[in-house]
């Protein structure tokens, strides 16, 4: 062993140029591999934090009538079908040991109507029980102005990003009730116009839902302005509203309606297959926007229902307990939900988040392909260089074989050379990569691009390397070393003693 190592080491020094070429390739490869792994892990964590932990959980339940699984951003698609069976769904979910928590929400698009503008804006609404929402997603946003609504309070939380967009297009700056414009929070455009800002502390929202005859325009008081922890350009479109007001707005049955015994025929309207959304945008539909006369105010005195869960929802978000088998959980859920006749199906988060989930998969795939490409190039160059080295040393190797060195000795010599180079340069590359992964988050490299934010794993570039990740890279490097050494080793062990003998 020592003999092989000595010879291998001295051969490295003897062929400094070649060693350096291989070394640099190994260094670069290991460095990029480490960095790539870091970015992938950071991204995985970022997705987990941003989408799963912060927005929609691991699994979403949607109506079986729902055509598209994508429920995150579906401006032009069909609206999300109502779910009226939450009372049946809840016990099924509660019985699953792999479910950590779940939250039923209303989720659909609404028009934002404003007296000062003829064209309506749009906002995505999430209708929630504010207290329950906080429990499910504890820190996915901060209230930067105003306050978090009290339990049962009927109000609107307006996202900072959507506020900026609204200002850009409609010149209205939303502020919480009783509050003024906070200079530090003004968007660039609003700041330029700070002295003449038109402030508004309520918004008239008109629910958009296919399959329901009448949606209502409802004036919501803005209780607070929120900023999502990450991916503001995506999540920043979503306003949080009280579930009962949401149901009102969408023309769904509220829990209060249910308590007041809704006539049977009317009930049938709910849960109908989605009509086409185009009708919403048709001439007639637009006439609906006669909100100026009398937008329906949420009656403060309206009876608080005993159980909000009686009403209509669109989606149920589910968090799994850590380490739960994902596919098995999904399958079991779907089986149990079908058996219980709930009329809903469980879809994985990456399908439910539509293009974002898909994008994450694509980025992951691209990085994988990149690493594989890197591997192949590195292996090809190393194989070439080492095979040439083997051939150049044919006489020397043949002589060693003649005086009694076994094939294994020759193979060991080559593997040893590659292993030393790989350990030194590749190891160096991994260390450099780890340092880079550690240093990059400190630089707080930010991006406004939402897709990059997913890659970044948050609001700033935040690659992440676990010990397992590093070990994985070491393993990959070892694999590259062995693969790269196999062919040259075969060339070298194929050299016979006769090759050492020069005949004339």
């Amino acid at each position, binding site marked *: 062993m*020592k*003999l092989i190592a*000595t*010879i291998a080491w*001295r*051969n490295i*020094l*003897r062929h400094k140029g070649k060693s350096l070429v291989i070394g640099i390739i190994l260094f670069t490869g290991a460095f990029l591999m480490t960095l790539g792994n870091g970015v992938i892990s950071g991204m995985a964590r970022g997705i987990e934090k941003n989408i799963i932990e912060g927005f929609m959980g691991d699994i979403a339940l949607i109506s079986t009538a729902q055509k598209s699984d994508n429920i995150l951003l579906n401006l032009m698609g069909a609206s999300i079908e109502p779910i009226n069976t939450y009372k049946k769904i809840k016990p099924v979910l509660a019985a699953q040991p792999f479910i950590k928590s779940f939250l039923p929400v209303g989720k659909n698009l609404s028009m934002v109507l404003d007296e000062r503008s003829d064209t309506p804006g749009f906002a995505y609404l999430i209708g929630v029980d504010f207290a329950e929402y906080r429990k499910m997603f504890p820190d996915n946003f901060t209230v930067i102005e105003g306050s978090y609504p009290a339990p049962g309070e009927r109000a609107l939380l307006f996202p900072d990003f959507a506020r900026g967009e609204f200002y850009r297009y409609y010149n209205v700056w939303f502020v919480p009730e009783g509050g003024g414009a906070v200079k530090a929070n003004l968007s660039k455009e609003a700041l330029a116009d700070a002295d003449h800002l038109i402030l508004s502390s309520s918004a008239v929202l008109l629910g958009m839902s296919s399959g329901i005859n009448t949606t209502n325009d409802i004036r919501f008081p803005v209780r607070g302005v929120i900023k999502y922890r990450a991916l503001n350009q995506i999540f920043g479109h979503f306003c949080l509203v009280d579930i009962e007001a949401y149901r009102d707005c969408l023309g769904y049955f509220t829990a209060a309606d249910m308590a007041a015994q809704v006539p049977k025929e009317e009930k049938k309207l709910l849960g109908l297959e989605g009509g086409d959304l185009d009708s919403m945008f048709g001439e007639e539909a637009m006439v609906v926007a006669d909100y100026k006369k009398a937008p329906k105010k949420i009656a403060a005195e309206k009876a608080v229902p005993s159980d909000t869960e009686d009403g209509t929802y669109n989606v149920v978000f589910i968090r799994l307990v850590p380490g739960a088998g994902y596919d098995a959980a999904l399958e079991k859920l779907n089986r149990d939900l079908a058996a219980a006749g709930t009329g809903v199906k469980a879809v994985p988060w990456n399908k439910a988040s539509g293009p974002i989930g898909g994008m994450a998969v694509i980025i992951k795939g691209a990085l994988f392909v990149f690493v594989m490409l890197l591997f192949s190039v590195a292996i090809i160059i190393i194989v070439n260089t080492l095979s040439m080295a083997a051939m150049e040393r044919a*006489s*020397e190797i*043949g*002589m*060693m*074989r*003649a*005086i*009694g*060195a*076994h*094939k294994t*000795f020759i193979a060991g010599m080559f593997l040893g050379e590659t292993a030393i180079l790989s350990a030194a340069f590749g190891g160096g590359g991994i260390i450099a990569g780890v340092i880079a992964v550690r240093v990059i988050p400190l630089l707080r490299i930010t991006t406004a691009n939402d897709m990059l934010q997913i890659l970044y794993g948050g609001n700033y570039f935040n690659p992440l390397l676990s010990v397992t990740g590093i070990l994985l890279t070491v393993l990959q490097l070892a694999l590259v070393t062995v693969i790269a050494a196999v062919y040259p080793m075969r060339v070298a062990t194929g050299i*016979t*003693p*006769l090759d*050492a*003998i*020069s*005949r*004339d």
Partner: protein
Amino acid sequence: MDIINIKELKKDYPLGDTIVPALRGVDLTVAQGDFMSIIGPSGSGKTTLLNIIGCIDPATSGSVQVGGREITDLTDRQITEIRLNKIGFIFQTFNLIPVLDVLENIEFPLLLMKRSPAEARKRAEQLVEEVGLKDYAVHRPSELSGGQRQRVAIARALVTKPDIVLADEPTANLDSVTGASILELMKKMNELENTTFIFSTHDANVLKYACRIVKIKDGLIEKEPVAA
């Protein structure tokens, strides 16, 4: 006792569509402790014969026994073991491992045999002295003259105390004075270590040293006039 026993040895080399018969039925026995020279014109089959005895080229037919063991029909592992344990080689060129110094080159076969490093070093030091290169013990081959390299090769060939040392024109690349000194050294070591030497040469000096001369021509051994 015969250390080598060759019967009806034939060796053909394919050359395109034809076959070159390099050895055409060689019978030869070599006694333990011989200092034997094979002479013959270029292309007569000297190298081929030595290579077959040295287990680095397989015979086409016939029988070759080295130290009483038939060497045709052995696996690569077995044949490598024989080369390591029973045979020492001195080649014309490319004798030494460039990255090892003189002592390391000499002890190399012992380390392949898994002898202890201390034992190997002791034996190598003894031999480096016997071949007169004590002062060059830590020099690399590239720092040595041709003659010095052959001295190292002789020491390395003898380090395992092999049954036979084979040398194919060991002096071919040396000037005549150096060549003579190498032959002299081989003879000395033959007496000192009682090792059988078989070597081919063109060197006229050989007659002075060899105790037995075998002439080969067109792949056949000419009748030996007298056994020495």
